[in-house]
């Protein structure tokens, strides 16, 4: 029986990019449906009535929401290749800890950076602290997952396509503070097609951010 896999997507969303990378790594064929977040579709509202957010993965008609939950689902169902999580329970707990850390921090802080309101300086400081913490966690490894990308790499790398926007809106350099992390992001894009295909160009994200700022009356 053919699997039917649909992704409710919004192309600038880092959370949706995570799912695309995972589906790419596992070689899963899927249909991608673009959502307009200012005019949400009936399908989205039906598939994620609680949060009304993307990404939503619909597998044979059944919806799964929340990107890290989707990643764990994908890893469990399509377990024939490219494991996203370690098999050792302790290593797995550590990977989930860092993926959760990225969830708790990067999006919210990053948003305060590009929005450019009174708390921007504070947000820049916080962002650099978080990225430095993650850089320390990476250490000398090629990837957070070790020799291959894992759930932490997949959780973080999409945000790197937003770095240019954070830097330009905040007038600072992330590479200056976190050269190893920036190098890691380059490595992910160069060595993993699933990553380079899932991430839009940073300038496209910047264009989107500027449009959004206009719409929100911030520019």
């Amino acid at each position, binding site marked *: 029986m053919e699997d039917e896999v649909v992704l409710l997507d919004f192309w600038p969303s880092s959370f949706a990019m995570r799912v695309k990378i995972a589906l790419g790594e596992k070689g899963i064929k899927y249909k991608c449906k673009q959502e307009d977040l200012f005019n949400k579709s009936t399908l989205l509202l039906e598939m994620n009535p609680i949060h009304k957010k993307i990404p939503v993965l619909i597998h044979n008609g059944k919806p799964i929401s929340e990107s890290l939950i989707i990643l764990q689902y994908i890893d469990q169902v399509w377990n024939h290749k490219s494991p996203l999580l370690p098999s050792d329970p302790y290593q797995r*707990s550590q990977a989930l*800890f860092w993926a959760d850390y990225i969830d708790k921090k990067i999006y919210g802080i990053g948003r305060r950076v590009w929005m450019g309101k009174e708390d921007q300086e504070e947000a820049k400081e916080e962002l650099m602290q978080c990225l430095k913490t993650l850089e320390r966690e990476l250490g000398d490894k090629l990837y957070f997952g070790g020799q291959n990308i894992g759930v932490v790499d997949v959780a973080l790398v999409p945000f790197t396509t937003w770095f240019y926007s954070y830097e330009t809106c905040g007038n600072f350099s992330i590479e200056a503070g976190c050269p190893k992390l920036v190098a890691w992001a380059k490595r992910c894009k160069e060595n993993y097609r699933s990553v380079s295909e899932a991430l839009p160009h940073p300038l496209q994200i910047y264009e989107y951010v500027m449009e959004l700022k206009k719409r929100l009356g911030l520019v």
Partner: protein
Amino acid sequence: MAESNVKVLGTWASPFVMRVKIALHLKSVSYEDVEEDLLAPKSELLLKSNPVYKKIPVFFHAHNPICESLIILQYIDEVWTTSASSILPSDPYERSQSRFWAAYVDDKFFPALRRLLIGATEEDKKAALAEVVEGTVVLEGAFGELSKGKAFFGGDNIGFVDIALGSLLGWIEVIGKQCETKLVSEAKTPRLVQWADCFSAHEAVKDVLPDVDKLADFGLKLRAKILKALAPTN
């Protein structure tokens, strides 16, 4: 089964710590209980074992620390597999649904409950109360879906969502008394009311949930400490 090298750093009043203890009781794993005083400065052990968040619970297994209660629960479920019940379902879809609802408790329900506890103005409290009540109605719906007519979110046995939500029952009662409202009401959430009774009476739970009066007293002290920390300094 007695286990050496299993330690829980936490406090009797924290619902997140309660989650870990309930899970260990379910798996019949004995552990060392190390109490952290939430009203005092943070201990060396806490700062060293959870440098990122500096929060309890911290779970130690063979000297390895694990933080974040839901992550700890998954770890416990994966390591101690010989006992009676699984905390998470084995079916991938059901697993994702359990994770979704536990995340809902942590990301939506608990923050609203916390805002209700520490709300400084009447307006703040009113808004938080509306959110909490709405949350209980949503969870009543989730219970219907997940329990499939059985006693718990996990079905016949206590599972991931039961532990995530059930650990909050003491605080739900204390905060409700403070607002002079039953937050989990017979009128709006009859199934949750029944579930709460079953959960609280369960072997693995009854010695973990704290005495409500003791918790109420602690709640006042905690609220004062939080509001003091949030107050603008001159």
